[in-house]
């Protein structure tokens, strides 16, 4: 068995690392039973692999087909260090599997008292009943139940029994991604079931749908005509957008090349883009300074990674519309919003986020990384002010004014001086004097931790 699941189980760090370095490999993929890489590493107690996976941004609480999370497996197999690591990465502690068991059920059942205490300290409820009506304490042997009970009381837990409710049909759990997701880059359009048109954008129609039991968003590109040449370019270009290996990059899962329809498929994220969250949110998400800083850090990491790639992703324009917010409130650069070379020629729909020089010069004559940094400054400004940049101007007006009349965002009084400084250095008029994303990363990390 020479596959990634095997390497994770046996803790083959070299192979795992090499596998992860290929951007097309999806570290959230699961095997035939939905066991993700993290499931296997947690089950087998491969601490190094768990840390590597978490550092690469894998999901902490995906479920397998039995709805177990890695935490369930680590608790059941007595890997206390891994349980603690997962808890530190905010694993969902009270998640139940198909039997209605939480991780605490397993720790109690197997008598791993230390793990059980760690779990309770991390707010694991002792009162959740499983499918058969048993709470974790019912599973304990001897005096362990009593000790855990007093610990729970001491932590101020509510002790009313929570009855089992089968909610698996709701599909709220984050399954490990189907491995076929990253295995098949060319997708047959017949396999898509598109249910709901979400939006009609200049670049294409966005549809919500399902593909191989995954929630997806399919973008049917808007093109005047699809020629053979365009099909060929499409096939050449979309694999570069399948970047699965970074937590802050949202990959294009696959594409359908079936003229006249060219479809770009990506994962469905309920919160939508950062732009949606910032300017059109219904208040589900708490937008405070620390959240904004965290997103800024996420974006910085994602962009730093993209800039570190050998093959630069062409026509990826950073803006709040092209940053997606994942279910766990991680910000991700959406690769699906990169433009194909044959797309939107001679049109820039969001010049408000563009560096002035990027509106005037061709990409090849441009310091793309510096131009992206300018765009990042606009996103920072957006998060700081909660305003849409140049909202009162049409794209043409805004573009002309930015490019030729020196129109810039203004920093209203009352912003954090740190943020102001960050925006100012990122928006340096001299492209060469702007910082790079990996220079910003430590600064933002420091600001986040404060």
């Amino acid at each position, binding site marked *: 068995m020479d596959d990634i699941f095997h390497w994770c189980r046996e803790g083959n760090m070299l192979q795992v690392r090499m596998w992860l370095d290929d951007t097309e490999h999806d570290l959230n993929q699961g095997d035939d039973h939905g066991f993700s890489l993290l499931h296997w590493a947690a089950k087998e107690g491969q601490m190094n692999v768990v840390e590597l996976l978490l550092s690469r941004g894998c999901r902490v609480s995906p479920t397998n087909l039995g709805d177990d999370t890695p935490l369930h497996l680590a608790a059941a197999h007595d890997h206390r260090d891994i349980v603690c690591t997962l808890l530190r990465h905010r694993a969902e502690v009270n998640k139940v599997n198909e039997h209605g068991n939480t991780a605490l059920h397993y720790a109690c059942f197997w008598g791993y008292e230390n793990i059980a205490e760690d779990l309770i300290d991390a707010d694991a409820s002792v009162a959740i009943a499983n499918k058969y009506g048993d709470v974790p304490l019912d599973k304990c042997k001897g005096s362990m139940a009593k000790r855990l009970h007093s610990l729970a009381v001491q932590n101020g837990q509510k002790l009313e029994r929570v009855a089992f409710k089968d909610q698996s049909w709701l599909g709220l759990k984050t399954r490990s991604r189907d491995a076929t997701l990253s295995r098949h880059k060319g997708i047959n359009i017949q396999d898509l079931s598109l249910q709901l048109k979400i939006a009609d954008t*200049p670049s294409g129609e966005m549809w919500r749908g399902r593909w191989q039991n995954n929630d997806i968003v399919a973008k049917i590109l808007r093109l005047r005509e699809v020629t053979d040449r365009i099909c060929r370019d499409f096939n050449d270009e979309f694999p570069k957008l399948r970047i699965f290996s970074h937590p802050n990059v949202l990959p294009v899962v696959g594409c359908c090349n079936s003229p006249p329809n060219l479809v770009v498929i990506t994962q469905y994220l309920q919160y939508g883009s950062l732009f949606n969250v910032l300017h059109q949110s219904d208040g589900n998400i708490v937008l405070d300074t620390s959240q904004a800083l965290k997103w800024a850090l996420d974006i910085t990491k994602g962009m730093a990674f993209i800039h570190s790639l050998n093959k630069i992703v062409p026509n990826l324009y950073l803006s709040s519309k092209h940053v997606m917010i994942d279910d766990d409130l991680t910000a991700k650069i959406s690769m699906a919003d990169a433009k194909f070379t044959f797309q939107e020629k*001679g*049109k820039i729909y969001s010049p408000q986020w563009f560096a002035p020089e990027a509106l005037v010069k061709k990409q090849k004559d441009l310091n793309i990384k510096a131009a992206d940094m300018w765009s990042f400054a606009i996103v920072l400004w957006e998060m700081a002010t909660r305003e849409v940049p140049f909202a009162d101007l049409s794209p043409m007006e805004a573009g002309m004014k930015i490019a030729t009349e020196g129109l810039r965002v203004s920093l209203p009084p009352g912003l954090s001086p740190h943020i102001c400084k960050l925006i100012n250095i990122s928006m340096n008029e001299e492209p060469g004097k702007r910082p790079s994303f990996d220079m910003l990363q430590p600064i933002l990390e420091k600001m986040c931790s404060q």
Partner: protein
Amino acid sequence: MTSHAANDASTFRRSILKTPSSRGPSPASRASCSPSPFPSSPASVSPSPSPPPPCIINVVPKRVMVLEAANRGQRMQECLESPSEEKGPLSFEEQESPSPVIVVSPPIELGVSDDLVGSLGCEEETSVGLTTMTTTRPKSPFSPKKEEASNESFWDKLGTLGRKKKVKEVNEVVTEGKHAIDSPGAPFMPNMPTEDYGLQDNEERSMIAPGSNTNPRLIQLVEVLLEWLNDVLAPDRIIVRDMEEDLYDGCVLHKLIERLTGITLDNVPEVTLSEEGQRQKLQRVLRAANHILGVGGVQQYQPKWSVESIHSKNLVAILHLLVALVRHFRAPIRLPDNVVIDVIIVQMRDGILNHRRVNEKLTGVYDDLGLRHERDAFDALLDQAPDKLDVVKKSLVTFVNRQLNRINLEVQEIETEFHDGCHLCLLMGLLEGYFVPLYHIYSTPQTFDEKLHNVNAAFELMMDAGLDRPKARPEDIVNKDLKSTLRVLYNLFSKYKNLA
């Protein structure tokens, strides 16, 4: 027919050739030989108070006519050109001389240039009766081809094509070379007598009426075509200076067709000196051209050119061919609209040369588009209500400026300010809600190609916006064609007029 033709040709007072025996100066023909504008006061028109001497238009190629006209001065032109004047109250009784009649037989020498001008003075003293002019007059050297034709075989004519004995070949080349040097190479000499001219019974020849020579639109058309020819043929290092003189032998046409189509014509010799060789070459070239243009087949439209007409340096035929090529290959030039010229068609009938005057349309309204498409509102507008044009222009300017003002731009002249494509691109961005990156267009285009690039970019944006491909060609916009520009803008107007 005769009288009708004479009426038609009222401006050519003396060009009717008649045998006195068959038909005298009938009242109809005399009336048609309308009074000259100047003979009423002979003193004023000295030294030649008599009506201008005859010019026989059928044998006189255009160039000679021009020369003649130049020699004679403007009055001759006026006389020929202004039929309205001639329809004035002056009656022919007022004329000093009876309307001249030209007698065909015995052979007459008419339409001679230099000699005629020289003889003008004496003509006055003798008689206006043009029979005097039928006396034998010195002929300028002319090619003995015709005589040879009778006693040489077909193969001799072929020259290089016929494989014959060396000696004969050499002889042939020598004679041919002699002819080439001695003769101007033209098959028809301007001074050729009518019988040499060889019009068969019922045969027709056509040529541009003298008045049309100076038609400014014709001159413009010829200039534009010459420029185009020179553009196309520049890679072959061919320079065309004169439409008739340079094109009649088929060499330039051969290169032109090859250049336009990008294919090499088989079996066409590069150089021919003999007249027959030229004809054969021309025939092959024209066959290829007709094939490309889709004319001249059994059931197809018959072209207005032929080997004969082109080889005889008929400007009308050459122009028709070139205009057809320009249209077919959608050359990026703008031909003047509605070039209509008067053409005299001379026909030999019963030994008499009759002529009639016909309007020949070289280019129509839409020839500049290279397309024959259906007429639309703009044709009606420009043709029927030119006074409304200003209103339309004004509302289009208002519509355009409402958008452009948002980026501090303004246009005043529809015709000129859209030709470089910049405004069109920016307008599309304003209408469709995107920014057109400045690297996508030339913001200060200088050359034709840069402007063309911009207009093409604008057309792409329009088509992306779901508009039909504009009916105008990008080249027309760059050439500041008002109608094309109006069409494109109107297209935008009808889609976006309700845009806030």
